[in-house]
C-alpha cells in the first residue's frame, strides 16, 4: 500500500510541470523551436556553415536591441536586421580576398557591437537584454507563442517548397546552376529562413545557445544515417524531443531552460557518439575474429 502511494506521488510529481500555463507554453515553444532549428540546421551543417548560426544569433541581438530602442516590432526588426546581415555577409564573401568565415566574423560582430553600444547608452534596458542573451522561455506569453508558431509554420512551408533545390545546392552548389536552379534566389530565401529561425529561437534559447540547437541535432542524426531524407526526419525529431525534454527537466533541476535544452542535446550527442564508437569496435573485433578463423581454416587445410 505504501509503495503504491509512493508511486502515485512520484507520478503526480512528474506531471507537475503540466499544471502551469507558463510551463505549458514553454514546452510547446521549445518543441516547435527545437524542431525548426534542427530542420534548418541540417542544411547549415552540411554546408559547413555552423559558424554562421553563432554569428547570426549575435548579429540579431543587435537588431533586437535597436528595434526595442526605437519602439519597432521586435520580431520584424530582428528578422530584417538578420536578413540584412546575411546579405552583407554574402556580398563580402563573394570577394575572394575576404572569404566566407571572415565575412561572417566581421559583419556579425559589428552588428552585435551596435547592440552593446545602444545598451551602454540606455542602461535601463540591461535586464531585458540579458533575457535575449540567455533566453527567457518561462516568460513567453500566449501572443509570443502564436508569433513563434506562425514563424515556425512559415519556415516549414518555405523548406517544403524549396526542398529539392535546397538539397541540390547543399550537395553540389557548383553544378546546381547548370541544372537550371536559381541558386542566388534559393540562397537568399534560405538566408531569410535562417534569420527567422534565429529570431524565433531567441526567446527560447538566447543568443549564446542558438548555435548549439542548430548544430547538435543534425550532427547526431548524421551519426545515425547516410540517407538525407532520413537524416532530416531524425534531426527534427531529436530537436523537438530534446526541446521539450530540456524545458521539462529544467523544472526539476531548477536550471535555466535554454541551458537545459542544450545540455540534453549534448547528452544525446555524447551517447550517440559513444554508441557509435562501441559499435565500430564490435564490428572491428568481429572482423578480426572472422579473419583469425579463416587463417586457422587455411592452415588446417594446408
Amino acid at each position, binding site marked *: 500500500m505504501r509503495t503504491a502511494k509512493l508511486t502515485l506521488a512520484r507520478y503526480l510529481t512528474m506531471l507537475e510541470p503540466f499544471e502551469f500555463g507558463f510551463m505549458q507554453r514553454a514546452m510547446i515553444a521549445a518543441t516547435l523551436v527545437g524542431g525548426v532549428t534542427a530542420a534548418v540546421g541540417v542544411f547549415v551543417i552540411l554546408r559547413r556553415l555552423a559558424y554562421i548560426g553563432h554569428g547570426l544569433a549575435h548579429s540579431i541581438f543587435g537588431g533586437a536591441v535597436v528595434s526595442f530602442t526605437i519602439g519597432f516590432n521586435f520580431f520584424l526588426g530582428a528578422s530584417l536586421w538578420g536578413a540584412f546581415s546575411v546579405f552583407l555577409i554574402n556580398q563580402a564573401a563573394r570577394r575572394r580576398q575576404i572569404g566566407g568565415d571572415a565575412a561572417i566574423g566581421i559583419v556579425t560582430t559589428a552588428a552585435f557591437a551596435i547592440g552593446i553600444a545602444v545598451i551602454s547608452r540606455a542602461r535601463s534596458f540591461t535586464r531585458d537584454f540579458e533575457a535575449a542573451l540567455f533566453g527567457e522561455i518561462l516568460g513567453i506569453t500566449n501572443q509570443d507563442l502564436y508569433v513563434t508558431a506562425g514563424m515556425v509554420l512559415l519556415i516549414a512551408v518555405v523548406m517544403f*517548397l524549396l526542398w*529539392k533545390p535546397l538539397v541540390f545546392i547543399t*550537395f553540389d552548389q557548383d553544378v546546381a546552376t547548370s*541544372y537550371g536552379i536559381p541558386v542566388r534566389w534559393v540562397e537568399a530565401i534560405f538566408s531569410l529562413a535562417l534569420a527567422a529561425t534565429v529570431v524565433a529561437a531567441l526567446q527560447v534559447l538566447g543568443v549564446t545557445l542558438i548555435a548549439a540547437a542548430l548544430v547538435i541535432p543534425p550532427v547526431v542524426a548524421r551519426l545515425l544515417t547516410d540517407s*538525407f531524407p532520413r537524416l532530416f526526419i531524425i534531426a527534427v525529431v531529436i530537436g523537438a524531443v530534446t526541446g521539450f525534454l530540456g524545458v521539462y527537466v529544467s523544472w526539476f533541476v531548477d536550471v535555466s531552460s535554454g541551458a537545459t535544452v542544450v545540455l540534453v542535446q549534448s547528452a544525446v550527442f555524447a551517447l550517440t557518439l559513444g554508441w557509435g564508437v562501441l559499435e565500430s569496435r564490435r564490428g572491428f573485433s568481429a572482423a578480426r575474429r572472422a579473419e583469425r578463423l579463416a587463417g586457422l581454416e587455411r592452415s588446417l587445410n594446408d
Partner: protein
Amino acid sequence: MATVGVDALVELQGVALGYEGVVALRDVDVTIAPGELIGIVGPSGCGKTTLLRSLLGEPELYAGTAKVADNTRVGYVPQVETVDWNFPITVEQVAMLGSWRTRRWLPWTSRAERSRARVVLSQLGIADLADRPIRALSGGQQQRTFLARALIRSPDLLLLDEPTSGVDIKTRHEILHQLAGLNTAGVTVVLTTHDLNGVASHLPRLIALGEQTVLADGPPSEVLQPGILERAYGQPMLVVQSGHETYVLPIPEEAPGAHGDVLPPPEVVNVIGRPDSDEDGEADSGPISDNA
C-alpha cells in the same frame, strides 16, 4: 546565350571568357554539330573546364557570341574531386537530383521518377548500388552515379569534366565505352581530359587549348602533333604513330626526338603484349614502353 541554326548545336565565335573580369580564354571559334564526340585537351589551368562550362553559359562572356540550339537539354558531369563524398546521400538520390524540375514544389519523388532512375542506373550497370551511400563507392562508380544524374534528363548534349580521372584502366575503358554508346545513340558528348593516350587519342575530334586560346581543332592525327603539343604544354613531346593509334610521351629537351619529329614505332617502341581483341571483340592497344 542566343540560338543557332539547324546545322550546329553550339557555335562560339570570337569568344573571350573568364571569371570576375579575368580573361581565361580568348579568340575561341568552335562549332559543335549534333552527334559529335569531342575531347578538350591541354595542360592544367589552360581553360578546359571554362570552355566546357561556356556551353552551359556560365563563365562571363567578354567578347564574341556564344549560341546554343533551341531546346537543347544539357547534362553536366563535374570532376568527382569537387564533390563532398561524405554527404549523406545515396546513389539513387543523387541520380534523381537530375530530375528536380519534375514536381519541383514537392519534396518527395514519384514512383515514375524512381523507376526512371532505376532504368538509368541499370543502363550504367549500378542498379544494385541504388541504396548505397556515395561515400562507399569506388572511383568508377562515382563517375557513373554522376553520369546517371546527367542522363536522367535525357540530354542532347552531355558535358563531362575529366570523366576518367582517378579511375583504373579497366574502369576508364568501361566509361569510354559507355560514352561511345551514348554518342552512337545520338547524344553529343564533349569531355575534358588530361589523358592524351588513354582517352584523347581514341576520340574522333580534339580541341587543344594553350596560350589562352584554341591551338588546334580536328582529328587526333592533326591535333596530337609535336609542335602543337609543345606550344600547349611548354615541353617537347614525342609522338608515336602505330597504325591507327597515336601515342604521346613527354621527353627531356636533350633526348632524341625532342626536336619534334613524329617517329615510326619499330625503332623506338617495344610493344609488350598485344591482346588480339577485348571482351567486346574490338582491337585494343596494349601497354607500350619507350626503350629508346
